[in-house]
């Protein structure tokens, strides 16, 4: 009797499994949480509907930072420092929806977003960056922040992009001091930070023999560019390194 029950239970389990598998052809969208039959062309985890609303940056006005609107930050910075960061490109505009997506990834900690963002950045890289790159690196976070969030959002993106492009990722930079939370600061405040925040991580380049390097720095958002420029400046001063930037969003 018990055996019979066991067999029936097993059968039912098998049946439900097959039903679920059939259902598995539908994807659950990470952005809207709905089941959908069609996924977007670049990611299995995003439905077509949500992917169509992505505000891609197709045409940039500023050659340096890839902003859609004209910007004065870049020309001023160029006059003051010379060209440190050669070029930056971003995948999307930082609209409220995109802000929500990033918050879900960065603050809530849903790491499934990483592969979607990396894929979007890879598309941008292929279409809008024509210079060859030797090394990928990323903007570091402080140790405390990393433990608090348990991952560095830029590092995840960098290593996924490295897998995609077959270019090695190296932790060239480290954070020297723990500044206040960046997202708390206003745009002008963030532009005014001048002192060095980043240091060069000399161990990372250990066996690398090549003299002049082209490095791509990965970050999540380019707001004023202070962070990326500080990183580029740090690398530029140490060695013969040309820096490029690739971020997921541009505000």
């Amino acid at each position, binding site marked *: 009797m018990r*055996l019979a029950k*066991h*067999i029936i239970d*097993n059968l039912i389990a098998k049946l439900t499994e097959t039903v679920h598998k059939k259902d598995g052809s539908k994807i659950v969208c990470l952005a809207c949480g709905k089941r959908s039959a069609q996924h977007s062309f670049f990611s299995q985890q995003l439905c077509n509907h949500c992917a169509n609303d992505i505000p891609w940056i197709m045409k940039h006005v500023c050659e340096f930072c890839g902003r859609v609107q004209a910007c004065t930050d870049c020309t001023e910075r160029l006059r003051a420092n010379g060209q440190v960061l050669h070029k930056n490109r971003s995948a999307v505009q930082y609209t409220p929806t995109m802000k929500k997506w990033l918050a879900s990834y960065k603050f*809530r*900690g*849903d*790491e*499934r977003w990483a592969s979607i963002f990396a894929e979007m950045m890879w598309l941008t890289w292929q279409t809008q960056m024509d210079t060859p790159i030797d090394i990928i690196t990323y903007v570091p976070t402080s140790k405390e922040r*990393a*433990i608090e*969030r*348990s*991952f*560095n959002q830029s590092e995840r993106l960098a290593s996924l992009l490295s897998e995609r492009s077959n270019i090695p990722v190296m932790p060239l930079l480290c954070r020297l001091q723990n500044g206040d939370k960046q997202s708390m600061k206003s745009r002008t405040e963030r532009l005014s930070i001048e002192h060095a925040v980043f240091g060069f991580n000399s161990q990372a380049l250990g066996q690398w023999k090549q003299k002049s390097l082209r490095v791509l720095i990965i970050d999540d958002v380019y707001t004023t560019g202070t962070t990326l420029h500080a990183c580029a400046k740090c690398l530029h001063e140490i060695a013969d390194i040309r820096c490029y930037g690739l971020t997921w969003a541009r505000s």
Partner: protein
Amino acid sequence: MLVTIYAVTTQHSTSWYYTICPPVDRIYWADIPRALFALEPPIPLCYARQWLDENQSLPIDTLPALTYSIQQFAEQSNWPSSLIRNLRFVSGLALHAFQKDDQRQLQLDESQWLKMCMLLQGRSLLITELQQLLQHHNLHHVAENWPRYIQQAILCDRVRLSPGVQLFRQTSRKWLVFKQNKRILQCSRCGADAQHLHRTTCETCGYECSYCNRCLQMGRCKQCSLVICGVKSDTFKPIARTVTKTNERTSLTVFQKKAADAAIHFLREQTHHTFLLWAVTGAGKTEMMFPILEEQVQSGRKLALVTPRRDVVLELLPRIVQAFPESRVIALYGSSQQTWQDAEIIIATTHQMLRFFAAFDTVIIDEMDAFPYHNNPMLSYAVQKSLRQQGQSIWLTATPPADSIRLIRQGRIPHAVVPQRFHGHPLPVPVHCQMAPLYEQLHRNQLSRNVWRSIRSSLQRGAQLFVFIPKIRLVQPVVELLQHAVTSDNDKTCESIIKGTSSQDEQRSLKVQAFRDGQINILVTTTILERGVTVACADVLVLDADNSLFDRTSLIQMAGRAGRSSQDPNGNVWFCSHHWTTEQRAATKQIKRFNDFSFGKVRNI
């Protein structure tokens, strides 16, 4: 968070422990002459727990033998290889971390510690939540030095730790014969299994670490994170409280009174765990709840009232505060200010139950079949976990799932049925209205004659109209179709304001409010509004009612929007469709049966 495993041995026995703050344990065991063996380095809690669960009886031989056995065990159960390499047992408990001076620094403030234990009773919290709770109650010293305070509480069995994601052994049979031992991961907070867990490298513990995606919105629950559960002390005695009788009770109908009495009987008997209260839409569930709450508060039992929607929580709060002025009542939801307060009556959204552990004597769950519960095992898991061992739950619903109905009919579950609305009038019975499929009408830009006749009769009697459609993207086209129909009609009395809304509409709450205020005549919407929105004089029109998205449950709920008030108890409900499906038939049959039952035409529901 990493923990240190250690063994305490005597000549005859060995017992295993883990600690988040080794010096506390050292002081604890100092007076008792026993040998301590500790594992270095500290490991994620998940693995420590697994070792303790599966090796409680391991005899101590020598340190190398112990080291060998843990490495063997770790390899078998797939611990991260970078962790296995360094594992070794040492004698004594973390000597390097403990110096003479520490004793003074490790001093605990006893009154603060006791207060912390009191506060933690019945809660299940992550570290960040623990710190918020302590800060809220001004226990700053504890908040800053929480590991030692918590460790002391663990040693005194006032608090239990569990890993955010735990590994446990499951025995299954392959082809009914071979026994297989599998170790599976499960989120200990929401009960999610491997398909909701995401494996990634974790900066907190430094190893490969899984976290739970399903309960992510309540904070990240990982293999290395601590879930702190406060144990209720046995000395806890219910404190009886006086309740001023509210006059709500006198206004109950016969059916309401019967149901409330049955529920109270169920709570007093304590022989069953669950009670099902099946009340039709508009039966006056809140009024029925008052006598139940009164009974609970009088006997001093702790109570939670759980509902899927935040607006319901906010709506209930002032009414319950007013009815029970002697009790502390708080509302918990996403951004609630009262999250860390303590109370006798807690009104909460379902997700908030994740933060409780064996806390309540009674949980009343409203709309058990509504969206967050429906096919969501997480929330019923959370509710079960928040109940004490002898705890009881009352499930309120207008449309129980089929298996619950079967249990009711067989009389195998304690239940009560309220087949009548509070005003005593029968439920409006849906009428079928034949029409061409909606896409055809949209394509021809012409509304079906039958449907228009229904809409016109509704508008002419001065009623507001809910128009339900199956798909969000049809909302705007249908609004335009209706507008076209209204303007092309010669009759001037039909001029009306038509708006559409859906879950993706950012102005939804504004439009719903306008509809409530009577500024909108026809509201086109999806199933999102099938519950909760009540308008005094309303009719219901379901377009494409044969769509597979409309099942018996949602058809009954939608039909339940009509005839809610005693001024207009006889609303109209039309199911407009090309086919008359089994779901529509079942919904209609159910409604008719309720009416027959309430007027004594049938004996059984």
